[in-house]
């Protein structure tokens, strides 16, 4: 579904991603681990057309998407769920969700997705008239994920879904991601260390200093002493 070949990304003069190649299969849950500030978020942003200077190939369903504007990529069915949420602060929960379905490709299934989101996030829907800026960190994160689902994307690129959240939210987010995956969606997650997420991973990558340093099944990662200690904290 997603194939990246020798991707290089730059922010001004600094070279962030270095020859990154990876693949994510249809319906898989793939997790990218690695220390903070080593390019994991940049990778997701590059896929979603949110980074200006990129070089290399990004194929989505066989189509080249590297360098396309973000609105075209959203239309093709790829969405980015930001680590810092990027909600519309002075709009209600409902309005944020409706804008999640802004892409032309999402409009036809807006109602269906709204119902799905309501079943996944019942607490959120109880507060559909609440302003996004008045929500707690955990609630805002839920809203960001829900807004991402409204785009009707088949590939969800989720940036640190559990960062800075209380343990109860971490468990809930893991459950929700499992639900999303059950619906046949492909999920590519960048995260630091969430055992519940790693459990459901089909594949694990580790990124260090802008390059992939490990690729394998979760069992391989769990059996590797060094990785267990450094990245999985087990």
């Amino acid at each position: 579904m997603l194939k990246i070949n020798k991707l290089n990304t730059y922010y001004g003069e600094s070279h962030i991603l270095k020859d990154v190649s990876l693949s994510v299969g249809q319906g898989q849950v793939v997790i990218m681990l690695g220390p903070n500030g080593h390019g994991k978020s940049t990778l997701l942003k590059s896929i979603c057309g949110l980074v200006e200077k990129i070089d290399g190939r990004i194929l989505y369903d066989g189509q080249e998407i590297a360098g396309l504007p973000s609105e075209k990529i959203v239309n093709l069915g790829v969405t980015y769920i930001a680590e810092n949420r990027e909600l519309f602060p002075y709009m209600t929960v409902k309005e944020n969700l409706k804008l999640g379905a802004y892409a032309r490709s999402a409009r036809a299934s807006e109602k269906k997705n709204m119902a799905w989101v309501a079943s996944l996030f019942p607490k959120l829907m109880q507060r559909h008239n609440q302003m996004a800026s008045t929500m707690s960190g955990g609630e805002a994160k839920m809203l960001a994920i829900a807004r991402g689902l409204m785009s009707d994307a088949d590939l969800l690129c989720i940036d640190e879904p559990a960062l800075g959240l209380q343990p109860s939210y971490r468990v809930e987010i893991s459950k929700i991601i499992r639900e999303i995956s059950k619906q046949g969606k492909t999920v590519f997650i960048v995260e630091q260390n969430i055992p519940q997420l790693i459990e459901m991973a089909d594949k694990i990558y580790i990124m260090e200093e802008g390059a992939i340093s490990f690729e394998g099944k979760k069992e391989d990662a769990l059996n590797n002493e060094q990785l267990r200690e450094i990245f999985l904290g087990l």
Partner: protein
Amino acid sequence: MFLEIVDVFISGLINGSVYALMAVGLTLVYGVTKAFNFAYGSFYNLGGYFAWLLLIPLTVVGGYYSVFFLAVPFFFIVGYLLEKVLIAPLRKYDDWEMKVMMLTLGLSLFMDFGYQSVFGPRIKSLPSIIDGTVEIGKVVLFQQDIVIFILSVSGMLCFGWVLNNTRTGMAVQAVAQNPAGAQIVGIPKDFIFAATFAISTIMVGFGGILLCQKNFVDPMGSTDIMIKAWVITAFGGMGSIRGSLYAAFILGMLEAFVGWYFGMIHVQIATLTLLLVTLAIRPQGLMGRE
């Protein structure tokens, strides 16, 4: 005395309504693009000349009906092209807000001197939309003023409706509130920037048509309008549409009462005093966000 005060109040209300229409457009552009359009006043004059051209030399069929009907696509296209051709290319620079300010200042002078070379330095007058008066008790109202008030208030209601009830309107608000978030959900930012510019140009163009037929079309009159629009925008709170709305009516009233009591020459200084005092106490303006 009482009748005089009522007259002054009505005049403040009518001017305020047109100022509101124009200032809301200016604040919209600032709210969405974070760039200030200093050529805004010159587009007010473009409204005046547009109406004059159609009504006097071209004697268009349908009079003001045709003027208003044609003004919507005309100002939309002018605003859209202006953004695409002149403003959008600047956005690749880090200090593009400053560059937009410089460019629009230059554009404003270019347009003002352009009006002089094309239409001559003398002021032009437009026929009034409607003649006659209406009497309510002892108060005499010009029908022209009533029409101006109705048109500018309906213009604003239309604008408010579009902003809150259409997909594009919601997208405009989304870009204003969080451009990165807007990009994530697939809103084409470049189109929204241009559309916002176009909508604001329609609003100021309409303002120009409405007020120029009451006053005159003055090739050098844009500065005065620019000052007003800027004062309202800053006083109301940069980027706050509601703030601009209130500020426009407050300014309209202030102008009317200061002009009546102290004389027109003191009007600008009074509005600027109000602005400076407000900003000293509340730097974000009446309703701006800190």
